[in-house]
């Protein structure tokens, strides 16, 4: 479903991604790990359509369509979801209005009838329950005054609402206490099925105890330098990244 080939990306002439290759199939969970500054967040922003980066080489196709040609909103409507490491606070835009606009624009794109107000509210109730998001969070402005944990739960709630095919979770575990982490991970697991896939970007193996990956990739200096099964995560947790750095020092 998602095929990334030799992807290079730069910001202000500084090359951050230097040839990423990654293939994701339905039903799979991929973990991307790596030390700080290795390009993990850049990779996810580039895939989500951030205009801050320039793709200089390579391709990324999503169900056969050229992902890199699409504006961010079309990527989302095609079924790509990006959970932000730092969700943005938007005072004045209510969660309900935000989500209804998002869901209905996606439906319109896919030639489906927009939800009526009551259908939408029903959907929202269901999904809130599924991801255990506090019901009054949705009565507020988008992320405004949310705690770190609430913001991350809100990302997973949005993921539930939009029902993406591929979700990229960018450091979803950062700054979460263990209870919030469990709720967030449970949400992700409940949304998982044989037709969708998840890419989990993380520093630590702990999240992977809850969201169990099929593959673990190590990103270092803009390249995937190692791929293996979930056991690699434990090895990294135990040994740190130094041995990788040594091995792949340019």
């Amino acid at each position, binding site marked *: 479903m998602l095929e990334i080939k030799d992807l290079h990306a730069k910001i202000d002439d500084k090359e951050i991604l230097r040839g990423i290759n990654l293939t994701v199939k339905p039903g799979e969970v991929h973990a991307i790990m790596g030390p700080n500054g290795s390009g993990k967040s850049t990779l996810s922003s580039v895939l*989500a*359509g*951030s*205009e801050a980066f320039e793709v200089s080489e390579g391709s990324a196709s999503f169900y056969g369509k050229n992902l890199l040609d699409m*504006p*961010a*909103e079309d*990527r*989302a*409507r095609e079924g790509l979801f*990006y959970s*932000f490491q730092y*969700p*943005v606070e*938007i*005072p*004045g*835009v209510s969660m309900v*209005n*935000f*989500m209804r*606009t*998002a869901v209905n*624009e*996606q439906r319109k*794109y896919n030639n489906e009838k927009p939800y009526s107000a009551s259908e939408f509210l029903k959907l929202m109730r269901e999904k809130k329950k599924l991801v255990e998001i506090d019901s009054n969070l949705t009565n507020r*402005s*988008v992320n405004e005054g949310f705690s770190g944990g609430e913001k991350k739960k809100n990302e997973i709630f*949005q993921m539930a609402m*939009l029902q993406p095919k591929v979700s990229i979770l960018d450091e979803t575990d950062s700054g979460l206490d263990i209870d919030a982490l469990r709720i967030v991970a449970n949400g992700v697991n409940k949304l998982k099925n044989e037709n969708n896939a998840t890419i989990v970007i993380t520093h630590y193996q702990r999240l992977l105890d809850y969201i169990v990956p099929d593959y673990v990739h190590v990103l270092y200096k803009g390249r995937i330098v190692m791929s293996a099964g979930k056991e690699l995560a434990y090895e990294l947790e135990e040994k740190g990244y130094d041995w990788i750095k040594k091995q792949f020092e340019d």
Partner: protein
Amino acid sequence: MSITGTEIKLEQKYTSLFNDSKTSLDKVVSENVSSQRDKAIQLFEEKGIPNKKVEHYKYTNMVPLFEESYNVDFEHEVFKKNLSEVFNCNVHDLEATTIYLINGWYYRKNQLPETLPEGVLIGSFAEFSKSHPELFEKHYNQYAKNDEDSLVALNTAFAQDGFFIYIPKGVVIEKPIQIVNIMHSEQDLMAFPRNLVVIEENAQAKILLCEHTLSENKFLLNGVTEAYVDKNAVFDIYNIQNQHNLTTNVSSVFVKQKQHSSALTHNLTLHTGVTRNNIYIDMDDEHCESHVYGLFISDKNQHVDNFSFIDHAKPNCYSEELFKGVLDDAATAAFAGKIMVRPDAQKTNAFQRNDNLLLTENAKINTKPMLEIYADDVKCSHGATVGQLDEKAMFYLRSRGISKEESRILLMYAFAYEAVEKIRVPALREQIRDLVEHVFRGELNKCHSCALCGQESNGGYSCM
């Protein structure tokens, strides 16, 4: 009657118009109103039309706007039709008592509800000046600062009609009183509406003043509203300006407050050519509360200038001021807000803010928050911001499948939201929320209240 001539000094154009028209000006109003004219025209002549050298008009030179030729309607002859032939108000179909002014004149076919509480007076400024001279002697031209602003003096010199509202002691008018001021003429026209509002002790009223243009001619409005808010009274005035690009609208509001009163002014400039709003709040007693708000949304070559003066003359008063501006294309705007805390005014709380969103490189705002404090036990703040749409927020919205255009609208609305939420009448807030959203969607031209709707825009101007 028309004014022409380029050789003579600009001010003379107005003083000779005054001298030539004095008889017709005086015909409709009481002695009290006419007797104030001479001094006013003299003040006007001394100061002249404000140009950029006048500090308070630094960013809006009025001279070219007043140099243009306009007709006047001192005989009340211009509009002779039935209002329903030209205007159909279905946008603001609010639960309200609605009256109309046409070209500044009170529309004689206005129908007032029969259920108004006893003693309440709503109607023509001119007529009430004659039938209730005692109220006019006490209040008329007592609050307007003719010596501060020559355009206010000019209005006093030419004042003939407008609306008059009197709410007697203890009476609460629940429904907003909506006043629709329409400009409609076959020739370019200048008007000087003059309004007076008296809210007596413990009484309450909310006014919604909507200003529209219904024909494509050039208009110059120079209006003044005085409001007296007595002890413990509550008064709101919401001024919605939705006029075409060839309109110059100078609108001055003077509010005089007494003990424990609460006043709110809200200037919503949704569309005009050139707008100048003057808001003067005089808290002349202890424990007054005032709220001064504004929202201006401009594009193309529109220009909006908001000037406010909040006078904390006595101790223990509270004032809150917020103006928000969204400027697109080559729109320009200015904000100048002065808060004066006089030596007596201990325990003053005064807060002022002006936030602006510039959507293009060419949009421009000059903002000047000012605090002048002569008391030593006060809590005051003032500030201004100028910024662009938040790129991060844009990306966040788009990454959820919301189009760039829709994200822009959501964020502009989010910016304006704070000012809209300041509206104290819930039903009105709903209406204005919709209206503002329409403005951001560029759909305000579907509004029936705008003359250029449904018509192809032609050379030089367009509707939204």
